C-alpha cells in the first residue's frame, strides 16, 4: 500500500466514510468496485486497528460489503471466542441466522469484533484479548459490551457492525463512540447462533453510521427462522415515513427519573438541547414518570446473573472450550451471584422478588406510552470514562447501566442517536418505543438526524 499516491489515499478515506445506504448506491453506480471497497477498509484496519484493538480477527479474502460481527455471534469456520480465554480455540461449524441473512444480502464478514467476555461488561475492558480504545480519545473506554463493534463503526473500520444488547451493550457503546445503535424489541431478531448470556433479555442489533442504515439492517436480520421460539413476529418492513421533515403532532415523553442524581451536568445539557430540538421540530414534550426506575439495576443484576449462571453451565470442557478456570473475573463474579440467588433458601428473596419488580417496571412503560409516542433521555449518565477507572469497583460499573437496562427488562426497542458532545466526547440520545414499534423510534431518529450534523462528526485518528 506504500506505493499509493496521496490523492488515492484521500479517495480511500472518502469511501470508508460512506454510510451503508450511500455505499450501496455508489456500488450500483459503479463509483468503485467491491474489491476497491474492501481494499479501502482493509487498509484502514491495518493502519488503525493496532491502536484501537477493535478486531480480534480480520478476514481478508472477502467479496461482500465489509461488516464487523461481534465475536459472540457464530461464524462458520471463523474463530469465535466471545472475548473469552475458554473459547480461544473454538471454531463454529455453522453460522448464526443473522450472519446467513447478511450474507444473502451480499454482505461479507471483514472481521470479528472485540468485546467484554461473554458480553459481560460496560467498558470493553473485560476482554481476555486486551481492551478496545475509544476512537475519540485513546485513553478512554469505548463502552461495552459491544466495544469493538462500536469502535469499528466510529473509526470507519467497517460499513456497519452487529452487536448484542442484554442490558445496554449496543446502545451504550454506540453513545460513547458517537454512532447509531439499535436494540430491537425482544423477539424481533432470532438469536440462533449468538451465545446466550441472559436469555430473557438478549437481542442482536445493528451499530451503524446513520439511522437509515440501522433501519435497513433491521429489515435484513429480523424475522423468524424456526430456531428461536421467542422470535415469531414477521420481518420488520419499513413503511413510508410517517414524519418526513418535522415532528408536528408527535408526543415525546421525558421521564423525570432519568434526570436525577448521578446524571453528569454536561451530558444533561446536551440531552436537554436535543429535546429542545425535537420540540423545535414540532413535537409536544410531555413529562412522564417511570416510578420504578430506581430498582432497575437491582432487578437486572439478580435476573441477569441467575440466567448467566445457568447458561454458562454449558462450559464443561467436554464438548467445546477449555476448563472453567479460564473464565475471567467478571464472568465468575456473575456466575457466583446468580448461583447464590437461585440457591435453596434464597430463591424467593431474590429471583422471585426481582421478577415481580420487573413486572412493575414493564407496567411503568405501558402506562407512560398511553401519554406519548416515544420516550427520550440519556443513554449513559456520563461520557466515556478513563480506562481502568471503574475496574476495581463492580457496583459502580453496574450503576452506569441505569438508563439502558430498564429497556431490556421491559423488552421494548431502544435507539441511541448521536446528539452532541460534552468534554469533547460524544453523547447519545436514547429514543424508546412501544413493544415491536421500531418504526416510530427510527422515524424520530431519522428526522432528528436530518436536522442536525452530529452524525457527520468523525474522530481524528
Amino acid at each position, binding site marked *: 500500500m506504500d506505493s499509493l499516491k496521496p490523492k488515492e489515499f484521500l479517495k480511500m478515506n472518502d469511501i470508508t466514510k460512506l454510510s451503508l445506504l450511500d455505499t450501496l448506491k455508489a456500488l450500483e453506480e459503479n463509483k468503485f468496485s467491491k474489491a476497491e471497497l474492501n481494499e479501502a477498509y482493509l487498509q484502514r484496519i491495518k493502519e488503525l486497528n493496532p491502536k484501537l484493538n477493535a478486531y480480534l480477527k480480520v478476514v481478508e479474502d472477502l467479496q461482500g460489503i465489509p461488516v464487523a460481527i461481534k465475536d459472540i455471534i457464530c461464524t462458520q469456520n471463523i474463530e469465535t471466542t466471545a472475548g473469552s480465554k475458554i473459547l480461544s480455540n473454538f471454531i463454529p461449524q455453522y453460522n448464526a441466522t443473522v450472519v446467513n441473512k447478511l450474507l444473502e444480502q451480499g454482505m461479507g464478514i471483514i472481521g470479528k469484533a472485540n468485546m467484554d467476555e461473554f458480553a459481560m461488561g460496560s467498558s470493553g475492558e473485560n476482554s481476555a484479548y486486551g481492551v478496545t480504545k475509544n476512537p475519540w480519545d485513546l485513553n478512554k473506554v469505548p463502552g461495552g459490551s459491544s466495544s469493538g463493534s462500536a469502535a469499528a463503526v466510529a473509526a470507519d473500520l467497517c460499513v456497519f457492525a452487529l452487536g448484542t444488547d442484554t442490558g445496554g451493550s449496543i446502545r451504550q457503546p454506540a453513545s460513547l463512540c458517537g454512532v447509531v445503535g439499535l436494540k430491537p424489541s425482544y423477539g424481533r431478531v432470532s438469536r440462533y447462533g449468538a451465545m446466550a448470556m441472559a436469555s*430473557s433479555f438478549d437481542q442482536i442489533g445493528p451499530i451503524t453510521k446513520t439511522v437509515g442504515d440501522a433501519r435497513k439492517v433491521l429489515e435484513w436480520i429480523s424475522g423468524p427462522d424456526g430456531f428461536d421460539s421467542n422470535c415469531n413476529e414477521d420481518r420488520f418492513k419499513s413503511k413510508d415515513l410517517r414524519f418526513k421533515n418535522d415532528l408536528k403532532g408527535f408526543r415525546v415523553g421525558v421521564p423525570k427519573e432519568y434526570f436525577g442524581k448521578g446524571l453528569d451536568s454536561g451530558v444533561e445539557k446536551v440531552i436537554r438541547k436535543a429535546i429542545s430540538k425535537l420540540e423545535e421540530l414540532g413535537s409536544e414534550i410531555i413529562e412522564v414518570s417511570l416510578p420504578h426506575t430506581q430498582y432497575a439495576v*437491582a432487578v437486572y*443484576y439478580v435476573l441477569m446473573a441467575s440466567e448467566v449462571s445457568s447458561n454458562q453451565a454449558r462450559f464443561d470442557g467436554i464438548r467445546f472450550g477449555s476448563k472453567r478456570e479460564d473464565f475471567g473475573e467478571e464472568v465468575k463474579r456473575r456466575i457466583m451471584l446468580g448461583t447464590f440467588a437461585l440457591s435453596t433458601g434464597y430463591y424467593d428473596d431474590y429471583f422471585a422478588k426481582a421478577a415481580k419488580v420487573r413486572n412493575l417496571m414493564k407496567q411503568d412503560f405501558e402506562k407512560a406510552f398511553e401519554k406519548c409516542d416515544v420516550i427520550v433521555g440519556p443513554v449513559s449518565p456520563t461520557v466515556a470514562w478513563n480506562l481502568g477507572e471503574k475496574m476495581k469497583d463492580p457496583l459502580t460499573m453496574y450503576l452506569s447501566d441505569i438508563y439502558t437496562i430498564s429497556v431490556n427488562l421491559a423488552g421494548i426497542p431502544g435507539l441511541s442517536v448521536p446528539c452532541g458532545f460534552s468534554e469533547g466526547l460524544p453523547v447519545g440520545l436514547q429514543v424508546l418505543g412501544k413493544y415491536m414499534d421500531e418504526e416510530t423510534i427510527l422515524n424520530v431518529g431519522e428526522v432528528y438526524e436530518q436536522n442536525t450534523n452530529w452524525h457527520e462528526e468523525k474522530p481524528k485518528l
Partner: protein
Amino acid sequence: MKLSKDQVKKVAKLANLSLTQDEEDKYAEQLSAILDYIDQLNSAKIQNAEPTFNVTDLSNVLAEDEVKPSLTQDEALKNAPLSKNGFFETKGVFENE
C-alpha cells in the same frame, strides 16, 4: 446481606468453579456489597405483582417433528478436547477409567 467465606465456598462448589483463596476473599466482599445494594428490592410494593419471566408471553411454541439436515458426527466433535470412537470422551462418573 453479608456473604461469609463459607457461603462463598459453598456457592462456588454449586457453580462448579474452583476459586483461589484470594478470589474467595474478594468475591465475599464484592458480592456482599452487591447484595446490600440489591436489598433495596425489599422496599418495592410487589403484593399485587405477577412475576415477569419473559416479555413475549409465549408458551409451548411447538414445531413439527421432522428430520432435517444437521451437523455430521465429525463436525459435532470438531471442538471437543477429547473424543473416542465418534463420541465425546469424558472422565468416568463412577470410577476412574
